[in-house]
């Protein structure tokens, strides 16, 4: 620690003359509320990237980066806006890594980020609605929109030659949103959706739901629900009555508990779950373990990538102000250029300073599409011999 302090002090002294500054980046996540179990790892992920950059001393002639945390609460838009307002006006943050939940992210974007011209990169807001939000080019996300999963699923179905499907979804925003995006994507790809019906979680009996789904028919049944909830009840009912034998399982239905419950009777069924085979993922997990947090926790790698993108864009723009860096985010995130993995931020900063283009791959194989959201990598898996087997990445 002492050595580290001396080193940073020395670095700061050396660089001091060239206009180094202390850059602040806001980290707005729901440290209280429904996501409070995963947000500490997300915050730690973002701060790991900031520490890496500060330690390298290569950002904008040796500037350091400090994290300023704010609580989005995930559900209370007023509280989240107040926290964001404080970070922007009092702490004068250059950019915001956040927020986490789609609702508060939209509120902060519209009422704080856009009026103040501050860049926001969310690691975890997946609502399709944010794609079309009015953002003046200031909003990005390293998490894919749920609409993206719908497209992935439509492609998977097409590749497997499945033309007609029935959809059963859990009756909430996630289930409904996902079911709608799957239906739109499947129909756009020329397939048919015979029925899209909701099921309630935790109910006593699913005979009625299974009966309706079976009557509508289809080559496969898509269960956009939760593995610990009604989703398994629907599968059980459909298997028992022989209504469906092939199931397509989106991310909420991924779990090894399916192997225990149904075993080989699910053979031939398949699903998608966010995931990447990029080598950056494994590197990030090791770095996280060394830093003392869980790198496999949901959206922790996305948080690292969001923070890293902000700082790399600063370097590319040669300025820490949001107005300048906003235009550079897509440049550093996407090809062409030298690929940059986690732990190589110093190399990326050097290349940028030398005027070389980079392609930030990061922990989640970042590729921003459309208005600046992750294209999303999904792992496609299949049941073979009663076991979940990875068949590829998309």
């Amino acid at each position, binding site marked *: 620690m002492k050595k580290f302090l001396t080193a940073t002090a020395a670095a700061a002294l050396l660089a001091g003359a060239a206009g180094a500054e202390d850059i602040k980046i806001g980290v707005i996540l729901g440290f209280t509320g429904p996501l409070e179990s995963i947000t500490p790892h997300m915050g730690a992920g973002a701060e790991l990237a900031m520490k890496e950059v500060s330690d390298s001393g290569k950002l904008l002639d040796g500037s350091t980066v400090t994290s300023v945390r704010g609580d989005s609460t995930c559900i209370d838009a007023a509280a989240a806006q107040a926290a964001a307002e404080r970070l922007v006006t009092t702490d004068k943050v250059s950019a915001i890594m956040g927020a986490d939940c789609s609702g508060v992210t939209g509120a902060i974007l519209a009422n704080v980020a856009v009026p103040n011209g501050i860049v926001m990169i969310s690691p975890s807001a997946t609502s399709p609605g944010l794609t079309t939000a009015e953002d003046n080019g200031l909003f990005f996300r390293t998490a894919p929109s749920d609409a993206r999963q719908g497209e992935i699923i439509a492609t998977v179905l097409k590749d497997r030659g499945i033309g007609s499907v029935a959809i059963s979804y859990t009756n909430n925003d996630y289930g409904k949103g996902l079911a709608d995006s799957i239906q739109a994507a499947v129909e756009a790809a020329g397939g048919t959706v015979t029925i899209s019906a*909701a099921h309630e979680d935790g109910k006593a*009996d699913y005979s009625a739901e299974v009966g309706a789904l079976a009557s509508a*028919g289809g080559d496969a049944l898509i269960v956009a629900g939760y593995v610990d909830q009604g989703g398994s009840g629907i599968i059980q009912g459909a298997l028992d009555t022989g209504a469906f034998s092939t199931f397509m399982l989106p991310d909420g239905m991924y779990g090894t508990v399916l192997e225990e419950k149904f075993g080989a009777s699910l053979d031939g069924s398949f699903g998608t779950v966010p995931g990447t085979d990029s080598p950056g993922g494994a590197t990030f997990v090791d770095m996280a373990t060394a830093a003392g947090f869980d790198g496999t926790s949901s959206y922790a790698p996305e948080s690292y990538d969001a923070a890293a993108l902000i700082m790399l864009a600063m370097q590319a723009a040669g300025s820490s102000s949001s107005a300048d860096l906003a235009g550079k985010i897509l440049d550093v995130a996407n090809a062409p250029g030298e690929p940059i993995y986690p732990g190589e931020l110093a190399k990326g900063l050097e290349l940028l300073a030398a005027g070389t283009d980079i392609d930030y791959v990061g922990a989640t194989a970042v590729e921003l599409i459309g208005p600046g959201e992750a294209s999303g990598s999904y792992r496609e898996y299949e049941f073979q011999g009663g076991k979940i087997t990875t068949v590829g990445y998309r």
Partner: protein
Amino acid sequence: MDLLNAIVALLNFVVIPATAYGAQLALGALGVTLIYGILRFSNFAHGDTMAFGTAMVILFTWLFQSMGIHLGPLPTALLALPFGIAATAALVLGTDRAVYRFYRKQKAAPVILVIVSMGVMFVMNGVTRFIIGVGEIRFDDGARFVINAGEFKKSTGLAEGLAFRSTQALTIVTAILVVAALFWFLNRTRTGKSMRAYSDNEDLALLSGISPEKVVAVTWTISAALAVIAGTLYGLDKSFKAFNYFQLLLPIFASAIVGGLGSPLGAIAGGFVVAFSEVSITYAWKKVATYVLPESLAPDGLMQLLSTDYKFAVSFAILIIVLLFKPTGLFKGKSV
């Protein structure tokens, strides 16, 4: 052939599931209706009594399985059933001694007893979760199907499969046996007759020398036995999850009220009315219609009266209609 296919599809997706579900509801509603008829209050703790009893049965099932005892094609849980009933009866009688007797002595109004039973419900809720946890448990073993959908298709050459699970067969057979035994007990034995007398007119029954404590104890024991049997059958057929039994309370009460609270026959009819209406009104008739109707009339839509989202609305609509026109239920129970 098409007509056969239509019949098989209807059996597979409507008749068999609804009959099994109806039998489970009927057994639950019988317990509720007995308590209402004799102790004169709606026992909200019944769903959790079912959960507790099933949890006990599961524990005994595990014990027997570890000792290597099993019943061949039948689930081991059947062997554990008497032990589960004994444990649950002990709990229910203990609760009566500790809680309900106090209010009975006070001649408390039924509504107070209802609230008391809600308190008991929350305690039992906690006890059950404490003993067995909140997760989902499957404890059925033995043969899973009497008729398997795939094999049925192969052997008959029909396009539609027919599945008949052994747990569904077991549910229906057990329900018939239990109901027959209960009616024999209520109508033919001395204790049963004294229970009915107590239910009809408490004061007259007391004057004629019927011991109230004995009637109460027998009622609780029978209701506990019904709860454990219903709970175990339900758990075997689907799976055990403490929270689901709490959810089951709603359709059980709907069944008891539709049939007429206090009427055992009504409870059975109510169970089947609720189960069949939930499944058949929300059923998409497209498949059946496609088989039956000539090709030119084949439907494009799903031919579904109501989306399955509304299946609970269906049972409650029936409940309201019955209560509007027959306030005492289909089988002349006590008015609510």
